[in-house]
């Protein structure tokens, strides 16, 4: 029974969840790219300060930018560590790459086991830290919605179950159970990505351009807004 479930989770469910994630992300990115292109065509000056946009995007990928931030540098640096872990571990863990080799026949560089363990533990600690940071800060706590609490937990589960799978001694149950839980929680996370704020994996890249284009107005649009609202001819 357990093995049958693992087979299901490792085969069809994994493919389905990857498909949902990729299709969802592709849709989000394509829609945004289309909207950006449309905005660029409508803007009177067709101008985007690319250097500024690229510099800002890149600056937020660098760890020292987070250390420079006011007051929140601990939270931000922990967030940076979490991002490193959640990008590297799923893509470069030897066990994960083996799946690609089996399914698609292509493999790539893998993390040395010790580093993989270190990154996994970093990811777990960082997520706990992020949750604690969100809770400890009154403003952040008051502002947070259900998703802001659930998503870190959702990210935490595959890390924890993955660690238990590769270190059965740390697990309260059978390693195969851990493996099944790892597969299921990871698949749940994959499916959620395009429909939650995690969609920023693709939209992060465009938000700076979007911001700039938001300020680039189509000539005469204010007048057309007035027309649509039936206020044409009315004064200030």
């Amino acid at each position, binding site marked *: 029974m357990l093995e049958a479930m693992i087979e299901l989770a490792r085969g069809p469910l994994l493919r389905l969840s990857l498909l949902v994630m990729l299709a969802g992300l592709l849709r*989000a990115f394509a829609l*945004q790219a289309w*909207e*950006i292109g*449309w*905005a660029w065509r*409508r*803007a*009177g*000056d067709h*101008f985007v300060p690319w250097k*500024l946009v690229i510099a*800002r*995007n890149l600056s*937020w990928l660098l760890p020292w930018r*987070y250390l420079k*931030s*006011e*007051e*929140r540098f601990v*939270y*931000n640096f922990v*967030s940076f560590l979490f991002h490193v872990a959640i990008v590297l571990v799923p893509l470069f863990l030897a066990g994960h790459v083996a799946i690609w080799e089996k399914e698609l026949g292509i493999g790539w560089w893998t993390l040395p086991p010790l580093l993989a363990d270190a990154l996994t533990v970093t990811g777990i600690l960082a997520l706990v830290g992020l949750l604690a940071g969100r809770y400890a*800060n*009154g*403003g*952040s706590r*008051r*502002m*947070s*919605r259900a998703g*802001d609490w659930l998503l870190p937990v959702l990210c935490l589960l595959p890390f924890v179950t993955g660690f238990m799978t590769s270190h059965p001694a740390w697990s309260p149950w059978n390693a195969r159970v851990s493996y099944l839980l790892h597969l299921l929680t990871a698949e749940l996370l994959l499916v959620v990505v395009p429909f939650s*704020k995690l*969609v*920023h994996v693709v*939209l*992060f890249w*465009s*938000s*700076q351009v*979007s*911001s700039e*284009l*938001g*300020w680039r*107005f*189509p*000539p*005469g*649009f*204010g*007048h*057309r*807004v*007035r027309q*649509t*609202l039936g*206020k044409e001819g009315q*004064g*200030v």
Partner: protein
Amino acid sequence: MAEAAHRPCRGTFTVDEIQERLSYIIEKDRVDPHDLAGQFLEAFAAILKHSNYRQVIDNYARITARCMNCACACQIYKHTRAPEDIPCFRSNLLLEVYRRHFMLRGIVETRILGMHFLTDEKVVEMAETFWHCTACRRCTLECPLGIDHGLVTHLARYILSEIGLAPRALVISVREQLEGKTRNTSAIPFPAIRDSIEFLVEEIRDDKGIEVAFPIDQEDRDYIFFPAVSDYLMEAETLMGIATVFHVCGDGDRWTIGTNYFDGINYGLFYNDWILERCLLEEMKEARRLRAKNVLIGECGHASRSAKVFMPTFGGAEAPPVVHILEYTYRRWKEGRFRLRDDVVTEKVTYHDPCNIGRTGWIVNEPREILRSFCPNYVEMQPHGPHNLCCGGGGGTVSIDEIRPYRTGVTGTKKAEQLAATGAKYVVAPCANCKKQLREVIEDHGLEMEVVGLHDLVYRAIVIE
């Protein structure tokens, strides 16, 4: 994407009740209290349809993380520590309206579950809170996801203004500027401006012994000059400095002031894009009438950002180049066209970066280079440059006299602390709004400082050969 999900609704408030809540944000006869929420959604939908806002609001609505980075950059939140002053919290008021009424998910929720999200109460709440922000955009520097809360504030105010909820002080000024007889926000008739100019010319003659011209309605000049019109009454020394620099550099016959339209102020930047465009088109029309090659903006932050950034987008290929007076003066100073004595302004001097010219790094080093060259006691305030604190009167709030206690006691408190820490005698602030606000901050906090423009000090130290 789907259109807004509307709901039939009765009015929740009477006009008097709205006025009680939003005393300075309403003109009584311009507001229809019936179904504010429906009106808001209608205006929001129309703006999304015709503008470039949808792509950016859609992006923000999907990715906001509520991480508090913006709050740490906000001088208002740092003073009040109230959640409603967190930039992301404020932006989410509007983003939530977008999510629940314009995104597929929200529409399903609204239509199937019948959960009508936006209420008249929420509209009034937005009208209150979006005018608590000074739109300084300091928070945008700290958002890892690139969210420009200044843009969200700008859009929210635009939507609100289309349903009649905009500060009375701004609306009345704009009405006079665009549709009144005097064609300027301070309602100064041009003859009075002419008198003021004659007075300035006499003053310069007495002070410096030179005959400086303020050319009026001259054609084919390099620059047509648009200062904040209030400068003619309140910032005499700034204007005298500018005219003297032109004169000393041999450019006295290369600039002009137009009589049809001469006010650089553009309150559209603060609350309405239709107004923003109309003011810029007026500037372009006047430049075209006098066949001026460049639009030259005086010491005014929002006027220069409006013209610099938005004239090209509204005017397209016909938009003339826009030059800020600091850029002009810096260029001439670098060329060695005028010299400044370094024994005139010996007191401690500091420089305040106006948000609209400093935040993006547009004009940051130029004024500093000039000041350092002739003010031996120049000190920086901390932080400065793109990270400088707002004067506390940004986003048009400085023009609303009713909220002075809020401006100096809440938004201006961190600024007062920052100013006091410099120990400077002079605060140089090349922006009409910042000057007014900083003077009030200094007065209300009992500081011993004086606010001046860059050209005020240049005027004192310029060498007349």
